[in-house]
């Protein structure tokens, strides 16, 4: 994963709450077995409605509980492929939030007033190291899990990081071996 530090530029606005991942990328596009090329199908049905305007900018500002519903990582893949590098919202659904972090599409939680100010400003600058968002006429800070932040700043491979604890995992498995299901024994 490429490291993230500063994300700045114009802001696209989608001022709706509870946007679910079925809207972000409808189910007919989940049949593909590749990870790329989902951007052109982003908001496939909504994009056909009159008045829809979502330019390909680095930053998306949107409403609360963004990304609710299905766990499909295709939703962050589509947003990233479309050009977004960060999403600013008052809150995110849990699985969507983790999925974004895993691929380096930065989800930023700000109070609703600040999100509206970012929307009004039309551009913003997000500094991951400093955990701040600046826009024309304002600034706010955001929270992020320190370990996740470290991985994003350095662009680390999650599996590599976890396997630094391989000895602990092995010990744990050895202690409780044959506790739990054995799926392979069913056949």
């Amino acid at each position, binding site marked *: 994963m490429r490291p993230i530090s500063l994300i700045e530029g114009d802001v696209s606005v989608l001022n709706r709450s509870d946007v679910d991942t079925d809207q972000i990328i409808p189910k*007919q596009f989940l049949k593909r077995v590749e990870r790329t090329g989902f951007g052109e199908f982003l908001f496939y049905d909504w994009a056909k409605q009159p008045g829809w305007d979502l330019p390909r900018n680095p930053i998306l500002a949107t409403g609360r509980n963004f990304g609710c519903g299905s766990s499909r990582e295709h939703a962050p893949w589509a947003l990233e492929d479309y050009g977004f590098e960060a999403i600013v919202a008052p809150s995110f659904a849990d699985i969507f939030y*983790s*999925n974004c972090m895993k691929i380096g599409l930065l989800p930023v939680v700000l109070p609703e007033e600040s999100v509206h100010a970012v929307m009004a400003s039309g551009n913003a600058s997000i500094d991951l190291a400093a955990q701040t968002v600046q826009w024309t006429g304002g600034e706010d800070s955001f929270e992020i899990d320190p370990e996740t932040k470290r991985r994003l700043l350095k662009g680390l491979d999650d599996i590599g990081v*976890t396997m630094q604890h391989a000895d602990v995992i092995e010990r744990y498995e050895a202690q409780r071996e044959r506790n739990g299901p054995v*799926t392979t*024994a*069913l056949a």
Partner: protein
Amino acid sequence: MPRTPNARSLFDKIWDAHEVAEGILYVDLHLVHEVTSPQAFESLRLAERKVRRPDRTLATADHNVPTDGSTAAAQIRDRLSRVQVETLEANCREFDVPIYSIGSQRQGIVHVIGPELGVTQPGMTIVCGDSHTSTHGAFGALAFGIGTSEVEHVLATQTLQQRKPRSMRIRYEGELGYGVAAKDLVLGTIGRIGVAGGVGHVIEYAGPPIERLSMEGRMTICNMTIEGGGRAGMIAPDDITFAWVEGREAAPDPLPLDEWRELHTDDGAEFDQEVLIDASALSPQVTWGTTPGMVTEVTAAVPEPRDEGEERALEYMALEPGTPMAEIALDRVFIGSCTNSRIGDLREAAEVVRGRRVAESIDAMVVPGSQQVKAQAEAEGLDEVFRSAGFDWRSAGCSMCLGMNPDIAAPGERVASTSNRNFEGRQGRGARSHLVSPKMAAAAAIEGHFVDIREWE
């Protein structure tokens, strides 16, 4: 209740037993399906990594499977669906992961077959690249959905990088009224806490109305936890749980009951949030909008919109505020999905249907959650009850819950559905979904519109 030192919740106990290092959670069971796994296997291959524990991994094909009785992936007409199922089969062969694909007598919706085979057990951590993994929490497991990058991480390491979520307990008091189902309880709960009410929380459901529920009812409730935003839902295992698990193919013999009986929340354990709900005040529920939180009682009317989102929802649903819910005419009825497709659900629906006819205007279908549920239902003659009433009796799969297979509602069609999501386009582009319990769906099929099941029977 004052906090008692060392008192732990069910969630705390399972978490503590599985956190191998700070922020690293061991996964006891990893369920896999065809939609969210191909990119994970591909990345493993590129990095030359293996599946760490195939013996704790189980795959099935469900989302893309046609419910027409096809017995091999090669029979799937849609090319992309066929490739996706074949890719899963090839990946499982390559990485030695056990799989029950299309054609297997153990195939079915991943959240139906896990419990049914007995691989879902109390006290476990269970993940799957599917948000409805919360279903398995009904057994007193910590179970939640993950994305494809995390699927890859679990395949490679059998662990997940995970910070401990906050905790919430929803306690119910009173008694569910006649005709009021587990589905109504969970829809009513989501209506109360909102679709983001549980975000960041693991939710434990407790209280006498929960203790009286069957395992099927408990699975329905935990299943829809995600629709209230919750990370996971769980219910303490009890004698009903143990009796259900005992004797299943992968269940331990004998059951480790001393260990499993410790899986409950201690008196005085603290939760970040507590909610109390009077179950006896609940009526059968019907959703009217495009989120599961847009829900009301069958005796009520379509509400006035309170914001732009609700206005948009009513427009999409083509509903006028003030219209009695019971007057909404339907085109389709779908009984199925990981929420309500188990044998108990089908028995309840069949009881309503027995000896009656589906309304002329309605296209009605029943889709068992697994091949085993299908076989059981057929052994009990339920297929005949549904068929003779005019229902289409199908083979196992996700079917019309999400429109990734040939079971799709047409634009503008209005569906009474026992599934979990009424999002725009979920059951087919432009289709309008109303979520209800199996009995309510069955009665709606007979009448052609919603009815209050309590009065109707």
